C-alpha cells in the first residue's frame, strides 16, 4: 500500500516550517523511487549470490571438472549417473531418508508433549523452558563434540547401560535393519543413525516446544470452556479442537526440520563423520569431502543440486502458500 504523498495547502499554511522545507527541496527522486533504490542492492546481491550461483553450480554439475584444474567442457548427466550408481551416494540417500523421518517424528512428538505439559500451569515453568531451549543457542559442532563422547560405546551413557546389561554400539554399529539388497547397498534403517538423531533431537526439540507453546497460548480458553460445557472429555477436546488448531504450526515445524535435516553437515561431520560402510554419511559430508578434499568439483556440484531439489520440494510450496496466506 502506497501512503498518500500529497499534502494539502491547508497543512502548509498552518505549519510554516514545512513550507520552507518543501520549497527548498525540489526532489529529483520521488519517495517511491527512493524506496526501490534502497532495496536494489539487496535484490542484486541475492540475484547473484543465490540464483546466479545456483545456476553456475548447475552448470559445473554438467561439466568435466573433476580435478584441481577447472574443465568446463560439457559432460551431460555423467556426474549424476555416476552418483546414482555409487555405493556411497546410495547409502547417503538411505541415511538421509531415515534420518529426516526419525528426526522430524522425534522433534514433533517431544515438542508437543513438552509444550502441553508446560502449559498446565506448572511450577518453575520458566526453569523447565530454559532447560529445553538452551541447546538451540549452541553450535551443532559443540553438540557433535559432546555427543560423540556420550554415545561412544566404551564411554558415556554405556557406563550406566552396562549395569543394566545393555551395551548398544550407537554410531559405531554397522547393522542395517532389515538390510534388503537394493542397488549396491543394503536398504533399511542404519542403527548408527539413531545416535545422530538423538543428538539432533537434543539440539532442536526446544524449537518445536517454543512453537507449540506459542500456539497453545494463542488458543482462547473460551473454546475449551464451551467444549467442556458441551460435555467433551479432555482427550476429545485435545483431539477435536486443540490439535487441529495447531496444524499450521505442525506444518511449519515439519518444513523447518526437514530442510535442516536434508542439508545437515556440521553435526555429523563433528560427531561421527561418514562412519564404517558410510552408515552415518549424508550428502552434505560427501559433498564436502569429494569437492574440497578430493577435488571432484563436478561430482560435488551434482550432489548439491540434488540436495537443493530435495529441499525445494518442501520449501517452494511452503513459501508460495504463506505468501498467499500472509501479507
Amino acid at each position, binding site marked *: 500500500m502506497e*501512503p*498518500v504523498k500529497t*499534502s494539502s495547502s491547508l*497543512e502548509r499554511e498552518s505549519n510554516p516550517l514545512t513550507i520552507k522545507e*518543501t520549497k527548498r*527541496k525540489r526532489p529529483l527522486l520521488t519517495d517511491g523511487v*527512493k*524506496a*526501490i533504490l*534502497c*532495496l536494489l*542492492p*539487496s535484490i542484486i*546481491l*541475492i540475484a547473484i*549470490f*543465490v540464483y546466479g*550461483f545456483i545456476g553456475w*553450480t548447475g552448470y559445473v554439475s554438467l561439466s568435466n571438472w573433476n580435478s584441481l584444474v577447472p574443465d568446463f567442457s560439457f559432460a551431460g548427466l555423467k556426474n549424476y549417473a555416476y552418483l546414482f550408481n555409487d555405493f556411497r551416494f546410495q547409502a547417503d540417500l538411505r541415511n538421509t531418508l531415515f534420518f529426516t523421518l526419525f528426526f522430524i517424528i522425534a522433534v514433533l512428538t*517431544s515438542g508437543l*508433549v513438552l509444550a502441553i505439559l*508446560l502449559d498446565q500451569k506448572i511450577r518453575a515453568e520458566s526453569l523447565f523452558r*530454559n*532447560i529445553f*531451549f*538452551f541447546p*538451540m*543457542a*549452541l*553450535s551443532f*559442532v*559443540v553438540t557433535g*563434540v*559432546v555427543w560423540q*563422547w556420550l554415545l561412544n560405546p*566404551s564411554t*558415556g551413557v554405556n*557406563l550406566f547401560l552396562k549395569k543394566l546389561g545393555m551395551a548398544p554400539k550407537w554410531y559405531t554399529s554397522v547393522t542395517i535393519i532389515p538390510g534388503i539388497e537394493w542397488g549396491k547397498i543394503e536398504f533399511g534403517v542404519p542403527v548408527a543413525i539413531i545416535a545422530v538423531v538423538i543428538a539432533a533431537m*537434543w539440539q532442536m526439540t526446544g*524449537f518445536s516446544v517454543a*512453537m507449540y507453546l*506459542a500456539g497453545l497460548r494463542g488458543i482462547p480458553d473460551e473454546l475449551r470452556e464451551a467444549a467442556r460445557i458441551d460435555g467433551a472429555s*479432555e482427550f476429545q477436546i*485435545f483431539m477435536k479442537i*486443540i490439535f487441529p488448531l495447531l496444524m499450521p504450526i505442525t506444518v511449519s515445524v515439519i518444513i523447518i526440520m526437514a530442510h535442516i535435516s*536434508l*542439508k545437515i*553437515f*556440521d553435526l555429523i*561431520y563433528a560427531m561421527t563423520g561418514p562412519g564404517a560402510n558410510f552408515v552415518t554419511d549424508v550428502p552434505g559430508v560427501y559433498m564436502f569431502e569429494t569437492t574440497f578434499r578430493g577435488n571432484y*568439483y563436478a561430482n560435488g556440484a551434482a550432489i*548439491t543440486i540434488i*540436495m*537443493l531439489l530435495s529441499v525445494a520440494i518442501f*520449501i517452494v510450496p511452503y513459501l*508460495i502458500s*504463506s*505468501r498467499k496466506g*500472509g*501479507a
Partner: protein
Amino acid sequence: MSVRVVTRPILYAILIAFSLFFLMPVYLMFITSLKPLDQITLSQMWELPRAIDFTSYKEAFNKLAPNFVNSIYLVIPATIISALLGSLNGYVLSKWKFKGADWIFTAVLFGMFIPYQSILIPLIQFLREIGLYNSIPGLVLVHVVYGIPITTLMFRNFYASVPTEMIESAQIDGAGFFTIFRYIMFPLSIIGFVVVGIWQFTNIWNEFLFAVTITTSQQQPIMVALQNLSGSQIVQWNVQMAGAILAALPTLLVYIFLGKFFVRGLLAGSVKG
C-alpha cells in the same frame, strides 16, 4: 487452564526426566573440563572431580584464543551490517510496497532455505577473484549477503505492526522516505534490532560450513578450531570439553541474559512472512 491429560506427579516426573536428558551433556562437559588428565578414566567419567583444576581451560584457551578473536572480528561487523540492511529492506517491503514487491520478497526468502553447499563452489571462485578468499572480511561479506533474507523477514514482520497512519501523517508534515525512517521507524525498532542482532550473532558465531571452506588455519573462526581440536591425534577429553565450553560461552551468555529475545527471533524466523 489447558488440557489436563495426566496427573500432577506423572507430569512432573516426565518433565524432570526430559530435563535430565537435556542437562546430562552439560553436566558431563563441566565436570570433565575441571578434571586433570589423570582423572579422565572410564570408571570416573561421571564422578565429580576430586579437586577443581583449571589446567584444561588454560590449555584450551591457549589453543583457541586466536580463533576466538577471529570470530569476534567476524561476528560484530557481520551482525551490525546485516541488521542495518535488513531494517532498510523491511521498511521498504512493509511500508513502501510497490507492484511485485511481494514476489520479490518471496524470491529473497528462498535464499534462507537453500543448502549453502549449492552456492559454495562459485562463491569460493568469486572470493578468490576479488581477493577475499581465506580472510575474515570475506566471511563477513558472505554472512551479510546470506543474512539478507532472514533479517529482511524479521524487520518486515516487525514493521508491519507500526500503524500506516503514522507514516501518512508524517508525510503530510513533509517528511520524506529517509526522514521517516530516521525519525520514526528507526527509534521504534530498538527491540527489532535486539532480536535480529541476537539472532545473527548466534547464527554467525555457530556457523561451520562457510567457516571451514572459506578460511584456513590462521583465519579460522572458533568452531573450526574446536572441530580440529577433536580431530587431533591424542584426544584429551578434558581439554576438548573445556574448549567446547569456551566456544559456546558467548552465545550461551547471550541466551542466559537475553533469552526472551532469542526465542522471539526463533519464532519470528519461522512464522509466515
